[in-house]
């Protein structure tokens, strides 16, 4: 299993702050996870945004970051702190 978290505008659009997903070898990188979610259609299309940011195990990463069983993946819009 991997856990997935959604923050801010994405959390609101999706109506959940996270979920768990069965991991298999087809989810080799963060973008594979994103594509799997995008395939749900509807509000999930928000994850197709150009400026989407992501993290693996609480560290910012690129969409090509490798994912393994047990990992925590997060998707969120551009950060706006400061």
């Amino acid at each position, binding site marked *: 299993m991997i856990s997935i978290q959604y*923050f801010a505008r994405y959390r609101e659009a999706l109506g959940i702050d996270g979920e768990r997903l069965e991991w298999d070898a087809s989810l080799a990188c963060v973008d594979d996870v994103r594509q799997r979610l995008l395939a749900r259609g509807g509000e999930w299309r928000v994850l197709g945004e150009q400026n989407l940011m992501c*993290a693996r195990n*609480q560290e910012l990463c690129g969409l090509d970051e490798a994912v393994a069983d047990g990992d925590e993946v*997060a998707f*969120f819009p551009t*950060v*706006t*702190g*400061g």
Partner: protein
Amino acid sequence: MSVRVQQAPFDPGVELNALHAANLGIGAVAGFVGYVRDFNDGQEVAGMFLEHAPGMTEKALAKIVEEAEQRWPLLRLDVLHRVGTLEPGEPIVFVGAASAHRDAAFDACRFVMDYLKTRAPFWKKETTPEGPRWVDGRDSDQTAADRWKA
């Protein structure tokens, strides 16, 4: 060095003074304070909510502080960011850098803010007369961070 993420308000003067902390090797302290404005993107702002990603936030800030320490000879570097509900006029963020000389203090302070703006998981949601709205990231913030790339 310290990284704090908190709901409670803070006093920028106290934070700035604490940086020196009787370290007689410190010849320069530079501080930055970010405040909530009452107007943004053509609309009045009555307040805001700052969401963050607990766990990831602290890690991201610690990493930024670590990078700054590798780049400049700092004697102290403090980062404090608030989360939760804030009103116009309230301080949101404080960055303070102390060094023997001014260049390192100025540069480290700006570096931390530029990186924090683009890499620390905080999101602002403003309360406006037309309802709440999420603040969009600005290209200029990314440009500001990019200039520190070696």
